[in-house]
């Protein structure tokens, strides 16, 4: 067995895992960025009194939410291309239907969750407590 092959296998394994989990990964990043940026920017504004487009959590959250939705789209529109890009190879024929449908369903669920969380910023005050 050549030396390069184990590392090709590892890329394919990792690529497949990332392809399957792409939607939830984007969702996790979205939660991290929205919650993290909102907490940090609220603390920063509170401590320094700073104002403006960049330190307003509303803008950050809207940008991050739109970014998350767009980042997920290739897994819907071009799943085969996304797989090849990540795994460096075509998916095995006998598993492709499974891979594609799992990835697309997970991405769909994740987009729903991203939009669900992201739209809250249009309704609620950004830094105040609810009571």
């Amino acid at each position, binding site marked *: *067995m050549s030396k390069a092959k184990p590392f090709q296998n590892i890329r394919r*394994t990792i690529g497949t895992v990332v392809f399957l989990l792409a939607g939830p990964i984007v969702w996790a990043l979205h939660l991290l960025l929205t919650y993290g940026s909102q907490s940090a920017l609220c603390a920063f504004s509170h401590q320094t009194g700073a104002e403006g487009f960049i330190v307003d959590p509303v803008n950050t959250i809207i940008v991050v939410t739109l970014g998350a939705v767009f980042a997920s789209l290739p897994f819907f529109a071009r799943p085969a291309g996304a797989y090849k890009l990540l795994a460096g190879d075509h998916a*095995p024929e006998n*598993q492709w239907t499974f891979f594609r449908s799992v990835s697309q369903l997970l991405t769909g669920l994740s987009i729903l969750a991203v939009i669900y969380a992201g739209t*809250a910023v249009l309704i*609620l005050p950004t830094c105040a407590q609810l009571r």
Partner: protein
Amino acid sequence: MKDIRQQSLPNSGPRPKGELDELKRIWATPRGWRLPTAINNTVIGTLYIGAALLFFVLAGILALIMRTQLAVGGNDLVSQDFYNQLFTVHGTTMMFLFAVPAVEALGVMLLPQMLAARDLPFPRLSAFAIWAYIIGGLVFFSTIFYDLAPKGGWFMYPPNTLSEFSPGDNADFWLLGIGFIEISAIAGAIEIIVGVLRTRPPGMTLARMPIFAWAMLIFAAMIVFAFPAVILATMLLEVERAFGWPFFTAQLGGDPLLWQHLFWFFGHPEVYIIFLPAAGLVSMMVSTMAQTPLVGYRFIVVALIATGFFSFGLWVHHMFTTGIPGLSLAFFSAASMAVAIPSGIQIFSWIATMASSNGKWRITTPSLFILGMIFIFTIGGLTGVMVAMVPFDFQAHDSYFIVAHLHYVLIGGMVFPLFATFYYWAPLVSRKMLSERLGRWSFWLMFIGFNVSFFPMHITGLSGMPRRVWTYPGNLQWDTLNMVSTIGSFILAAGVGVFLVDLIRNFRFGEGGPENPWGAGTLEFLPNDVYSTRSIPHITSLNPIWDQPGLAREVDEGLHYLPNAPTGGRETIVTSAIDAKPQFVLQMPGPSWTQFLAAVFTAAFFLLLTIKAVTIALICGALAILFCLVWAWELDKPSKGEVNIGGGISLPTYVTGPLSTSWWAVVVLMLVAASLYVSYFFSYLYLWTVSPDVWAPDNAAGPPSSLYPIVSASLFGSGALILFLAGKFLPEINTKNTSTSLALVAAPLVMIAALAVEIFGHVQSGLDPATSSYAAMVYMGVILTGQAAIASVILCLFALGRHVTGQLDNYRRATFDNARLLYWYTVGQGLFGLVLIHGFPRLIG
């Protein structure tokens, strides 16, 4: 790969005489006083489940005492202090000593059979985890008898658990005991991840994996990412209790809410860590009981993965009333409702499977428990959506409504499926089936008792009764509801009692039970013995026994892969993670005292530290490491050349790097370490946002001169380079060279020096860890990298020992490759830490 059914079978029969006897001899279970050395999955898996069941019964008895105390208002059956110990030990035992171990035990016991592997790849690691858990768990539970039990609830919130408010050793037993049991759970998770991904039978692609294997894979991955958060939390709290480093003391820049973030980042996924494997078991049983393939296999896989992920976005829903901004709460409220979708998918899939069975659905004890589970868990899920609504949670928080909700979720989601499992899979390890008649009695008593006990608690809670109260005045109209709940709890206990009677009467450990009594389609019901299946089948579908006629006979006659023991020892086939193509034959270890003694001394180390017997604890710690090294010494066996497993396939018996299972285990270990460090990174930034007033450079001794981190980073880099070069110049097979020995001595020394320089710099600048949360965090970063460094140093020295004794060269190099991988990870973490500790204060200054 061409369908095996279109070809001849991999091996021909009849098999040579003596082949089966050799397999039996090699895989024989030690008897008598050597039983603790056993590592066969059926033996240790049964022991594991037995221990978990014991803890379930013990914690249940504590619950009965609590329910008796609460039966009427103003009762004084137990004291307030003892009641606090009761609910703390009940919750802790149920979550840490019963629920997680029970599902991990099922993984250890069922997965090898379900995957037709001879065993999981690290059987001694499983055995270590089990013995550590049993010893640690028994000592922890026994504290309730000596007034030494913790009193802070299973969540142990500071400041209540800081030394000022919880003096004595009680809280330490929780912190060190449970922290240590979590390590045992992580060991099990590593075994399960590598086992599921690498020891599947040929042909069992990801798309053909049993649902339970998917569930266990996700379960184990969740442990890897969730448990480190609570391990860090327990470290921080124990360090604060022991040395006064103020992570949670508000006056010095700490914050008790940090504990809640870390605890619930673990604690909420924990619920799904428990539920997902149980859901996987239900999926397997529903299909069998309906005698039809599971409806929506892909949807269930999607639901398991989505639940696993979303569960990490729910932790703040335990903190809705802590004053976090409303918008933050909305993010977690949204995730809390989103997670209901995948849970619902599974329930609809089960119902659809039952409905599509065309009348074949059988009402048996397992199916009764499954139907009970669906009813109870659905109610728990619905009340879960209610408490995910922030305004409702404000009202229901810390009331008996929550007690009702969590028991509906946990008992419905985990305990009922577990009892179904006992009845369904008992024939795998018992010569006799459990009784259907007693099983039905057990189910109905448990089902009625559970609902009588817990349904009224919804009303008790909405009527205003707070949870965790020792007693209540008798004039608040809670008496009747509480009395009903107490009666229900005893009916529930009677149901468990009937099950125990059934176990005593009918469970007889050993092979030779009825074969496939339920007519299942999955591999664990193939003919089994101590060596698992006689030969390892080639899989072409999701339900091989249903879809491959004659498979059981073929496997039992040794006509599939590896019907013998070509290396002369324990072994199994390792396949590729995605396609399940055979890659090599893994030589596995046999029974040994080493993992048992390592577990005993590891438990002793942690428990003796709890009672401050430091010297003897350190001796035990050293002995634990020694026995781990002796155990590991026997693992890296030399190649036996290529062996023929049948079907014209010859496989190597030695591999290293990404092909080897040990390399994968190190990668998973690195993920654990990285999760721990990410939790630390979060904690550092969190405490800064809470208390920037104690942060350097303005308000504390600033970071030392840049020279220190530069020197430290250079040393880290040098160590990494030394091992990189050493890897290029390993000696030829069966030879030694001085440069390898020197490299394996130099690399650890350089790493120790890098850490020493870092510590020295902070000491020189006058930073005292007890003065502020900032200072405490700085030193904590060094401690975390230090513990990774200790592991790296030990592995490097271990590799040196292997080289000096002629067991490490440029072919037999798995030990070196694994040590180097962990070393490089430690260097990466160390460099990141330097940037954070020295860069961040300069950035904000």
